């Protein structure tokens, strides 16, 4: 495993987006993972649509039939991947732009840009997470966002943080150590792309500590999924 790795340096990460006042983080995490997988399969970075999932994906979790993806009221990345496999794929942002609220479904199968080949969950082991990140591209992850409302920058490593997951984001890389503005402590960290615009955090990104002494900080290791895209010429 490389000591540091960042998919942004390899062109596999699209621009930071803003979900606005809508609980659609799950669709941004899903589209970010598929953008990366599509890039690895085709060499092209396509900015994909979240609105298609907000409007059209009402897939339910097989193990929790009451838990279905529902636009601004929340969803899950793994059920979104399942929806994308059944619907045939995802349109581009350009063809199906984000509206920040749920509308009638306007999915156009003829305009599919990226297709899901398969997806799986990664065990809550930080080496396996890093290995799947390097091999399959950015990963869709859940996290507890309690410290993110006031986060400005640096490597977040709260003494105490809940493990209940309430936010979906995208894991794009990791660093071996980063200076924290206070107490100048070196902390290895995950690099996380958020969907709250570039004027939040570090240009839209969040860093949270990782490593043997702080495993699964804020639940960051406990809901990790990877997706593979169909190779199209």
């Amino acid at each position, binding site marked *: 495993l490389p000591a540091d790795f960042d998919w942004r340096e390899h062109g596999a990460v699209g621009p930071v987006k803003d979900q606005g006042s809508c609980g659609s983080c*799950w669709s941004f995490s899903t589209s970010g993972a598929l953008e990366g997988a599509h890039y690895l399969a085709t060499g092209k970075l396509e900015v994909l649509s979240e609105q298609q999932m907000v409007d059209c994906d009402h897939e339910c979790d097989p193990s929790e039939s009451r838990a279905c993806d529902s636009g601004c009221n929340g969803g899950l990345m793994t059920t979104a991947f399942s929806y994308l496999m059944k619907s045939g794929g995802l349109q581009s942002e350009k063809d199906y732009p984000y509206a920040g609220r749920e509308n009638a479904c306007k999915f156009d199968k003829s305009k599919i840009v990226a297709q899901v080949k398969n997806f799986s969950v990664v065990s809550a082991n930080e080496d396996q997470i890093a290995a799947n990140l390097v091999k399959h591209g950015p990963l869709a992850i859940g996290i507890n966002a309690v410290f993110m409302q006031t986060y400005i920058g640096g490597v977040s490593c709260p003494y105490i943080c809940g493990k209940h997951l309430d936010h979906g984001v995208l894991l794009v890389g990791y660093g071996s150590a980063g200076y924290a503005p206070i107490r100048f402590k070196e902390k290895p960290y995950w690099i996380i792309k958020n969907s709250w615009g570039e004027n939040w955090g570090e240009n839209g990104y969040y860093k949270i500590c990782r490593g043997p002494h702080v495993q699964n900080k804020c639940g960051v290791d406990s809901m990790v999924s990877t997706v593979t895209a169909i190779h199209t010429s």
Partner: protein
Amino acid sequence: EEDALIEQVVGGGDGDGDDRELGELLDAEAHFASFERRFGRTYRDAGERAYRLSVFRDNLRRARRHQRLDPTAAHGVTKFSDLTPAEFRERYLGLRGGGRTSLASTAEAPILPTDG
């Protein structure tokens, strides 16, 4: 050395509490005015603004608490500083049914080699 996990975060009971409270009020008003300019905030009327100022002041205290609990990051005023924690969760998160239980129906990724 390990940081002290238990820190004194509540000030002493001495009489300077009122001055500090007054200082905090003035401080919050100044920060709030700059927050409104920076994020282009406008409120329906004076009542709504007064309420949002009180939420903002609470969030200044929360940011200070987060800074103590999370000293290797920087915490402070963000675009969400005029929202209560409940409003923030409701409007800007959106992960349903979290935790691994809802992943039970998804295939596990094969274990990858990580040495060498």
